Every structure is written in C-alpha cells, then in structure tokens.
C-alpha cells in the first residue's frame, strides 16, 4: 500500500514538472511567434488579425470585419511618438484622396491616454477613424514592436505588401507605402500588377503631398 502511494506521489510530481515545463515552452513560443508581422515578413499573406476596438473619434466600436470589401491602411501610433506626428499629414491626405476608391485609413492608438490621443487628432485635423487599443492585445496579434508601424489589408481581409516599421513619410518607407496602398485597393487579379509596377509608375502619384 505504501509502495503504491509512493508511486502515485512520484507520478504526480513528474506530471507537475512536465506540465510546468509545457507551460514555459508554450509561453516562450507564443512570445516569439512575432504575430502577423513575422508571417508577412516571411513572404506570406496571412489574414489580418480581427479586432473590434473602442473608437476615439466618436462613440462606439470599429471592427476590421466591418471594413471587408475595402482596402485598409492600419496605422499603429501613440501621441507621444515623434515620427507619428511627422507622418500624420500624409495619412490624412491619403485618406482624403482615396476614399472614393474604397480606401479606409484606420489609426490604432495604443499605450496612450485617450485624452492625449484626442488632442493629437484635433491638432493634426485627422478625420479618418481612430480606435484605442487599451490592453494592447491587437499590438501583440499584429506583432507590433514600436510606433509607428503600418500594415495594409486588401479587400479580402489579407495582409499585403510590406509592413512598415517607422514613419511612412521618408525614404524607402514612402515607396513601400505607395505600393501598399495600391495592393490594398487592388481587386482580385490586379495585385500582381500593382506589385510589379515600380513606385514611380503607380497611378496615384498624388498620395505624396
């Protein structure tokens, strides 16, 4: 009887250690998965992680699913981020110039006070939808590591183009941004053409102020 109890105790102890080890491995793998950004950087076109977040520009929430059928520019930002201030005018102009073509720019404010974010929106006269990711859960699923970062979602809800780390308003990021907008807006079958065409031949030259 004592021998059996000892065996059960040993089995329980080993089971507990294995369970804790499994938990550790799961956590490490989860943290290093890199979210959707890692898949995008690996050349895949993963579905854009869904979200439904509180709006800052008006009451209610905005879900990514509600934008299906439109091209979407997702811009992660915070009011204390200096490059976010530099790129805000370009994002606003992109939104104004391309609404008729079916483009939506969505600003996802995170790691920020709502009041500060609203003041930022007023200061730069932003009229595109702004949402607040208070818990930062959307940041994790997209693999955002800093601000600003920008993603492009096509009309079928897939991430396309390059995800842009840093401000979109200068250097190679500006070319990536133009291409990303065209890929997001492209209808089925047009995506390859948008990718192949160099930025200087893109039809929407007025994206750049």
């Amino acid at each position, binding site marked *: 009887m004592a021998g059996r109890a000892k065996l059960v105790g040993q089995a329980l102890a080993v089971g507990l250690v294995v369970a804790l080890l499994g938990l550790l491995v799961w956590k490490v793998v989860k943290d290093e998965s890199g979210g959707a950004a890692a898949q995008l950087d690996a050349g895949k076109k993963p579905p854009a992680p869904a979200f439904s977040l509180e709006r800052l520009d008006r009451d209610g929430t905005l879900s990514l699913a509600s934008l299906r059928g439109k091209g979407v520019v997702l811009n992660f930002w*915070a009011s*204390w*981020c200096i490059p976010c201030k530099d790129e805000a005018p370009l994002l606003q102009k992109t939104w104004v110039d391309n609404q008729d073509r079916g483009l939506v720019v969505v600003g996802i404010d995170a*790691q*920020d*006070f*709502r009041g*500060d974010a609203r003041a930022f929106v007023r200061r730069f006269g932003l009229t595109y939808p702004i949402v607040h990711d*208070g*818990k*930062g*859960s959307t940041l994790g699923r997209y693999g955002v590591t800093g601000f600003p970062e920008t993603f492009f979602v096509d009309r079928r809800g897939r991430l396309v183009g390059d995800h842009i780390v840093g401000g979109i308003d200068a250097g190679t990021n500006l070319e990536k941004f133009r291409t990303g907008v065209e890929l997001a807006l492209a209808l089925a079958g047009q995506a390859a053409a948008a990718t192949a065409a160099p930025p200087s031949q893109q039809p929407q030259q007025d994206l750049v102020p």
Partner: protein
Amino acid sequence: MIAVVLSLVPALVPAAPASAGTAAERPNPADLEAELVCPTCKTTLDQSDAPVARRMKAFIRARIAAGAGEAEIKAELVDQFGPAVLATPPRKGFDLLAWAFPIGGLALGAVVVGLLAWTWSTRREGEAPPDGRPLDPELERRLDEELARFEG
C-alpha cells in the same frame, strides 16, 4: 467597558473618501510608481524614463494633487492601459493562479514534509526494514558476533 468600546470605535468607522483625505492619507507617488508598469518598456515606472512613463508619472501626481486615492488612480490607469499596467497581478480570474500556485505549492510542500517527518518519527525500533522482509536468523547471528567482537 466604556474604554474597551471607545478603543474599538476607530476600527469600526469606515475610511474617509480619498477626496476628503488629509495630506497624510494621500498616496505616495514613489510607492505608486513602484507598483505600476510602463507599457512600452515593461519595467516599473520608477525605473523608466520612456515618454509614456513620464506622462504616467505626471498623471499620478496630478491625480494625487486632485485628491484621488491609490485604488482610484490604479483603476484609472488600468482603464487606459489594461491590467498589464499593474506590477502585481489582480487577485481575481485567471490571474489568481499567480497567487494560488506559490501559496498552494508552499502548503503542499509543508504537508509532504510533515507527513514524512511523522512517518519517520513513528517508526518503532525493531520494526521490519522498509522492504518488509525479516532479517535472516543466520545473518542476524553473524552480525551480533561481529558487533560483539568489535565492541569487545
């Protein structure tokens, strides 16, 4: 009797609202900064100089100056940044496991040690060895002889 009742009165009176508190009851900003985490660098606010950490420190001082209590300020920051802003997990929901595991582990360890100590202390002299087999008489006789020779 009256003295006993009077001595209990302070304990029975509910705490005054934070907004009506005196300076002595106000939370210490340094204590709060050690209990809250900067969302960008994941260290406590007192160890961070990130822009958002500086903004949060300013918010804490402004709220304390306005008379807000510790719990109120923490709740407001959780509302803005989520529960991860707390350096220690809340004692509810899934986060309760973070408290339950160490305490449960300690309690389980104490029970196991206690049981082992009790088992060892109650094993009587002359009791059969742990494997339950009695000692061979011939082996026992030789052992006694060897011991007698060693002691003699």
